[in-house]
Structure formats: structure tokens, C-alpha cells
């Protein structure tokens, strides 16, 4: 097995992370039943990099992603998207940020069943009242192998095809950050590998910042960097990870509990 050498994080091109959490705290519930899902997380995600967030169940990785993506509001701390502070912004601002600066890929695809693949892809742009860049659209459709499927509805597509449509939807608006939540969780290994390769190519070829939440070491190995979370706190990171290193780190986290 080839073990990649660990390397330090390359300095960010403009010295700013694409998205960052500063001392982020998220508490669910109140009083005795309160749960601190995030307990002071400070982490930055570099522009043009593919970062995976990992951790055992209940480590707060999904909560972190939801807060970073403006889907959920933190109890305290700050979320910086580029130069914008998303903390304590009204829903209107968060909605606009999600529509124009953030892309999503979900575990269960979440396509709208009544829209064709093409309409699903352009949905965020439609909502923003913008037109898709035809060159980018064509490139995405070709790269993702969706050329013959644009008029199909989700129910007529396989799981892998649906997730590629979701990927195209997330990429077509040139978001600052693409968030992927267990994107391979509902796919067979071959389709999963395809999707992960496509995510990696998006960072290499399009300079896309990707943040992916996963519990699968194999999936995390596609990333440039893995951020480890345990009990709502940052528990280390791995640069240029491979499966063995990630598995080992996860086992160490599990043993340390």
C-alpha cells in the first residue's frame, strides 16, 4: 500500500478560506436535555480544495455542514462565507446565499420528481432568475454523462444518474462552496466511485471548493484533506489522506471515547 506523505496545508491564494467556522457552538434543546452538537469548532476550508469532514455518529459533522451552508443557525460563534458573516443573518440573506453562493448534493439525491433532469439542473438558477451559462451547462452535461438523459424525469433515472444530475445542479451556478452530505450513501460502489471522481475533478478542473461529510473512509480518501470531528470538537486532520490513514484515525477516535 502506498502511503502518501503528509504535507502542510498550502497557503490560501487570497489568504482567506472559502468558508470557515470560528468558535462555532450549536446547542439543541435546553436545560438538562440540552445537547451540545458543536462545542467550539474553529476550522477553515480552503478555496479550490476538496475537504472531507469525518467522525463517528453524533460527532456533529452534519450539524457543522448545515451551519456552514446557512441551512441552520449556530447558537454562538461565527460562520464566514468568503468575506460574509453568515451568523445572525435573516432568512432572506441566507436564502440568497444558498441560491447564489452555495451548492448542495444530498445522500438521497433530492431531485424534484415532477421536473426533467435539465429543469432540475437549472432549478437554483431559475429561482435566482438567472440563465445558465450554456458553455458550462454543456460541459457539465457531457462530463457527467447526462447528455441523453436531459428530458428524463428522476423516476426514469438510476441512482448514479440521479446523483450526477444533483451534482450538475450544484455546479451549474458556480457556487463558492459545494457541500456534499454523504453523496455516496445511497449508491453502489461503482456509481459512488464515479461521483467521488467527479467531485475531485471539479476541484482540479473547475477550481471548485468542495466540502463533503462522510463516514466512509474510502470516500474520504478522494479528498485533499480530512477534518476529523468527535463530540462536537475538532479532533485532528489528515492531509492527502488514504484509506488506511483515515481508518486508523477513526479507530483511534472510537477507542479514545
Amino acid at each position, binding site marked *: 500500500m502506498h502511503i502518501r506523505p503528509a504535507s502542510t496545508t498550502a497557503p490560501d491564494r487570497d489568504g482567506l478560506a472559502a468558508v470557515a467556522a470560528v468558535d462555532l457552538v450549536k446547542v439543541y434543546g435546553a436545560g438538562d436535555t440540552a445537547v451540545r452538537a458543536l462545542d467550539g469548532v474553529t476550522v477553515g476550508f480552503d478555496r479550490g480544495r476538496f475537504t472531507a469532514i469525518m467522525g463517528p455518529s453524533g460527532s456533529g459533522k452534519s450539524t457543522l455542514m*448545515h451551519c456552514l451552508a446557512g441551512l441552520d443557525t449556530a447558537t454562538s460563534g461565527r460562520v464566514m462565507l468568503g468575506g460574509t458573516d453568515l451568523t445572525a443573518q435573516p432568512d432572506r440573506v441566507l436564502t440568497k446565499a*444558498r*441560491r447564489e453562493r452555495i451548492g448542495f448534493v444530498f445522500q438521497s439525491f433530492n431531485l424534484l*420528481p*415532477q*421536473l426533467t433532469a435539465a429543469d432540475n439542473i437549472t432549478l437554483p438558477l431559475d429561482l435566482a432568475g438567472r440563465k445558465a451559462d450554456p458553455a458550462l451547462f454543456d460541459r457539465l452535461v457531457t462530463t457527467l454523462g447526462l447528455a441523453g438523459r436531459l428530458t428524463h424525469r428522476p423516476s426514469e433515472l438510476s441512482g448514479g444518474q440521479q446523483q450526477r444530475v444533483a451534482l450538475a445542479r450544484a455546479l451549474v451556478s458556480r457556487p463558492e462552496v459545494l457541500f456534499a452530505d454523504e453523496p455516496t450513501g*445511497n449508491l453502489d460502489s461503482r456509481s459512488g466511485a464515479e461521483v467521488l471522481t467527479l467531485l475531485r475533478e471539479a476541484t482540479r478542473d473547475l477550481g471548485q471548493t468542495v466540502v463533503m461529510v462522510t463516514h466512509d473512509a474510502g470516500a474520504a480518501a478522494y479528498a485533499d484533506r480530512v477534518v476529523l470531528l468527535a463530540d462536537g470538537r475538532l479532533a485532528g486532520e489528515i492531509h492527502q489522506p488514504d484509506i488506511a490513514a483515515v481508518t486508523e484515525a477513526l479507530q483511534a477516535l472510537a477507542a479514545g471515547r
Partner: protein
Amino acid sequence: MNPVLRTQLSGVSRRPARLLLTGLAVLVASFVVYATVLAQQITERSLLNGLSGTPEATDLVVREGTVTGAQLARIAAVPGVAEAAGRLEVGVQAGAEYLTVAADPGTGPLSMVAPVSGRYPAAAGELAVTPRTVQRLGLTTGSEVELRAGDETPPVTARIVGVVEPPSDYGDTAYAPLGTVSALVTEDVLQRVEIRLDAGADATAVREGIAAVVAGPEAPEVATGADVRLEEAQAMVGEINQMFAVVGMFVAVAVAAAGLIAASTFRIVFAQRMRQLALLRAVGAGRSALVRALVVEGLLTGVVAGLTGVLAALAVGHTVRPAAGALGVDVASPGFPLAAAAATVALAVLITVLAVLAPAFSAARVSPLEALRTAATTGARTGIGGGRRLFGLLFTAAALGGVAVVLAALPEPDAQDFDPSPLLLGIVASGACAYIALIALGPVLVRPVLVVAGWPLRRLGPVGRLAVGGVGGSARRAAAVSVVVALGVTLIAGTLVGGASVQVLAERELAASAPADFELSASDGTGLPPGYAGRAAASGALTRVTPYRRIDTTVGGVETAATDLALTALPRLADLDLAAGTTDGFGPGRTVIARYVADLANLRVGDTTAVTAGGRTVRLTVSGILSDMGPLHSGLVVDGSDLTGLGAKAAPTGLLADASADGEQARTAGLHALRDLTAGDPRYGVAVLADQRDQLRGNLTVVLAIAIALIGLTVLIAVVGVGATTALSVVERVRESGLLRAVGMSRGGLRTMLTTESALYGVVGAALGIALGVPYAWLAVRATGLNAPLTVPGWQLAAVFAALVALTALAGVMPARRAARVSPVTALTTD
């Protein structure tokens, strides 16, 4: 308990609100049914409590036989009788008007009238009249009137000495003591005798005593006052029951609509639980166990919805009395009709169980594999199966066949002795088939309607596009809800179109029979004295004073009246539209003829025909044919010179005039002006045509309003159904809402989208309903054999359309608000 059933029921008990939402349409239907029962109770009891035609003090009634004045005196002398009032009503001619003179003691417990002004008549030749009679017939206190009971009886002059208030005032009644009334007629016969007994008198003994007095070959019955009042009240209640039978038909349609809505909501609720049902199947639950569990759930829904509806109706029913009491109206309490309540709940259960059967069977057919699939792309079936399509097409064919049969059997215009009921039944049957076909083929029909209706919405941007897509994506659901909206709209559109057609017919008929507010005519055919028209016009209270002449003629073997009242003489005559030809260039030598004259004499526009009257003949050219009758029901309209040529005298037969202003006062002033003109000369009669017109118009409006209010019940249930469907589909699509919010749809956008979807159900339903209702209404108007034109009340239909869309949009507002409040994270993680 069966574990499958237990699973289902524990799910239900965790979310009782969902159960109520599923049964909402049934709840409303039960409410309507039971409220109708209570309304009938309230009406019946209020009537029974109220006064019948017999005074409450009456202990015994002698009726249905011959009683003479002499017998009355002997009855009054029977020991124990405190008072005996003979009743007699006589119809007489008072000048040119009809007047009923009724006998009443005027004072005491047996009197039915209350004094208003003046005094009650005491001497012969004195009368008291009711307040409306004073207005109508101008019989003010102190005036004298000549009464004539028949051709043989000599006229009697009576003086009005007072005004009295009767139980109900028809505007043509005078009261007097019995002696005065019986003096008007030659026979000594009373219609009935009402008897009040002394306090403590033995009713049985008195009854026997009276029976002995009236004994004879045509002996009348001696009944107790209580029995007679009950009978009279029940006769009224019988009418009320007939009215409620008609109401019941509309309620039945509403109940059927509730059943359809319930079936659709069950389908949605079961689709939401598809994975859970599949899981039960995967762990070994049998199909029949699933069906049983789902049907029991439906049964439970029916019981809960039925009980809630009945209790709500009971609550409302019992507030009616205090509420009416606060307004100073005394109505009875509806009581607690338990049998009807039980029957209503049973009906609710029956409807719900029938509604749940089909959804339960199709839900139980779920494959166990479904449990393993992700929910993201399931549902959203749009097409229909071959069997359903065939079923739908069969019923379409049956409906079209029905229409063809009715069309073939349509009567000729103005056909005589034509019975429209088989044709109308045929239309109802064909309509029912068409509606069943609509239910079956609905999902296929929704798409084309959406393409048209959705076009402007698509233009509006992504929110509109998504709403159209959302409705079109679940065409089966959209169809299930829309057909119920369509049912309501079909009935309303049909009523409006039928009403509008009949209204045109009525206006035409009114223009023919009542072209002006007043008509003054000579009863013996001598014609009006010269100068009447001029004096009428000079009175100031009248305008458009138009004298006319009218004679009997024969044309082409048809006997009909001809008049020189020009079609342009009065504005209301414009409603007499022409079926063919024109009135341009009307003048000597020309004639406009009624449609039936054209048909019977076989005349067409341009034909020249001979018109004869009293041996004289004039040749006239037909320049126009009216759609119906001519003015004043004449068959021919000719120029004055031609009428003179036919031998008509110069004196006008009558004159028509309008009141110089609108309103009751101006009308009364006009009437008085004409009365002054005739100065009470019995040869000249004045008719207030405007009153007839108002009454006819008023009746039609009231009938239409009642019909539409009753159909409103069905519409209400349809709107409730749209609300429930939107609410349930919002729950079902919470992930979809979450996704839309996640990819950047604003809260307002999501609200707008869901509300628009809800409104689209209304658009589709209203479009289908109008498409079905208008042609059927036309067919029904044709089938009645009425010579009514096919009318489309465009504005009214547009208003119905707009109202339905607004109502269905409103039904979606609450669920849409709820959906928009949910955070995208919660929505996305909901399973």
C-alpha cells in the same frame, strides 16, 4: 388485536389531527346533513307553536258541512257555549277590483283581527279593510265602494269605517260582522263555526249538544279546536317537508362529493405510509390483514368525523334560539333528535368506509420491496391503467349516447302538451355518466387543462412553473380533487345558464304582456273616450303615455289579434327580439308577426299575405318575425293606417303608460292619476303591469338564489377537500419543500408556490365544471320545450370561476404557511 391493525391504530392515535384532516370532508358533510335535520325541526316546531288559521281560544269547531244562520243561533244557545263565531268568506267585485269580505266578530277572543284605526263595523253596509287593501284598492276610511257578489245580486254600497290588521294581509280583504257578510249572498250557509266554551263547561256534553243541533243529512263534523289547529299546522308542515325533500337532494349530492374527497385523501394518506406498509408486508403481514387494518382506520375516521360533525351541528342548532331571541324573533329549539344523529353518524361511517375501500385495496398491493427503496422518487404516478381508461371511455360513450337520444327527441319550439320529464331524466342520467367518466379519465384530462391554464403561470417565473409542475406531476391527485370542484361548478354553471335563459324568456314574456307600468283599457270593447291620453300625459305622474288599438283578425287561416302598437313605441318592447327580418322601414303595407303566426300560417320574411277583419281585407308584406309573442300578446303588428283599413275605430282600445319616476311612490302616484282619469267608471279598468313584472322577476331571482345557496354546500365540501389535499400533500412533500428552501427558494416563494398549486386545483375543476355544465344546461333548456334562447351569462360564469379559484387558493394558504415555517434542515431530515 391483530398486530397490523395495532400498528396502524397506534399511528392514528399519535396523530389524531391527521385523522380529522382525512375525515374533514366527511365531517363537513355530517354537519350539513345534521344541520338540515335540525333546521327542519326548528321550522316545524316554530310553525306548530305559531298560530294556525284558527284562534287559540277556540274550543270546538263545526266544519265540513252545512250550517245555517239559524243553527248558529241555536249553537250559541247550547248550555256551556260562551261564544260562537260563524265564519264566511265572500268574493265580491268592488268597482273593477276583486275583494274578499270575511266575517269576524271584531272583538273578543275569537276575533282574528286587531284594530289599527277607525272602528270595527257595527251596522249593515259597513266594512273594515286591511292596511294593504287600503293601499292597493284605495279604500281609505270614509270612502264608499259598490260591492257586487254576482250578476244576479243587486249591488250594495258599503262604507269603510276602519282599518284592521289580519293574521296575514293579502291586500284584498275586508272584514265585517257575520250579518253584513251573509247579506251579500242569497244562500244562508256558513263555512264553519268556531265555539268558545264557558270556563268549566263539560266539553263532551257541549259537543253532543251541538251535534244534536246540526244533525241532518249533511251534518258537519264537530271537532275540537286543538285538533283543527294541529291539522292546519301539519298541512303547513307538509309543505315544509316537501321543501326539505328538495333540500335533501342537494345535501345528497354534497354527501357524495364528500365521499369522493374522502377517497382522494385516503389515497394520499396511504401513499405517505407506503414504506411503512411495505415494511409490514416485508416482515410477513398478509394483504388481507393490511386491507382490514386500513378499512378499520377508515371506519374510525368515519365515526370521529361523523360524531364531530353532528356535535358541531347540535351546538350551532342550539345557538339559533338564543340568537334569534336576541333579535326579537321567537323560534323553537331543535331538541335532540337522537335517531337522526345516529343515522347521520352511520351515514358518515358508510360513506367513509366506501371511500376507503379502493385506496385500501390498492395500498395493500404494495410490493414488500418498496420498503427498501428510497422515498425520493416514489409516488407521482400520472397516467391511468387500461381498465380505468376503458371504463371511462364506456361511460363517455354512454353519456354521449344519452345526449344523442335527447337531441333526437327534442321538441319543436312551442310544442303543445309536451312532457319534458323523460328528456330531463335522460339528461340527468347522461350527466351522471359524464361525471363518472370524468372521475375515471380525470388524470388524462388534467394535463391539457393545465397546459392552457398554466401557460401564463409558467411565464411568471420558476415559482409558477414549479406550481404547474407540482400539480401536473401528481395528475391523479389533482384530478381527484378537481372533479369534486367540477361537480360544484357544473351544478352552479348549469343553474346560472338555465336561469339566464329562462330570464331572457321571462323578459320577453314580460315585454309582451307588460310593456309599460300601467294599462288602462275598456272592458266592453267600446274604446276609450277621446282626450284620455292627453289628460294622462298632462297629469305629470305619467310618462310615455301610448294609446293603442287592437282588433281581432284572420291571417292565413290563423285567428289572431292585430295591434298598431309600434315596436319602437316603448323602451321595454326592445326585449321583443326578432327571429328573422328587420323593423327598419316599418310602415304602411308592412307587418311584423309573432313566431307562432309565422309557423301556423307558413309565412316567411318577404311574403305578402292577406289579413282580414270583419269582411275587410288588407294585403301586407311580412318584414319581420318575432322570436315569440307580439306586444300585448298580439300576433300581428301593423301600421295604424292599415288597422284603420281593417275597420278599427278611431278610439284607442287602451293606453299604456309608465310612472314618471322609479319607486313605489311614483307608481302609486301614477295609479292614482289613472284612477282619477276614469273617475271610478266601472267600464274602464286599470292594471298595474309593473307589479306583475316585479313579482315574476322576484320569484325567479329567489328560486335561483336558493338553488345556488344549496349547491354552495357541494362547493363548500369541494373547497374543504382542496384544503385537506393541500395540507396532506404539503406534509407528504416536506422534503421537497426543504430541498427548494436549501437551493435558495425564499419562504415567500414557497408559500406562493403551494398556494398557487391549491388555486390550480380550483382552475382545473372550474374549467372542467363549466365545460360540462354549460352544454348540459343548454340541452336541459331545449328539452323543457321552452322557447328560450341559449344564453351564456359570461360575467356570472367568470365570477364563479374567479370565486372558486380564490376559495381554493384560500384553502391552501394555511398549509402553505405551515410548510414555509419548517426549517430546511428539519424538512430534509424528515423521513
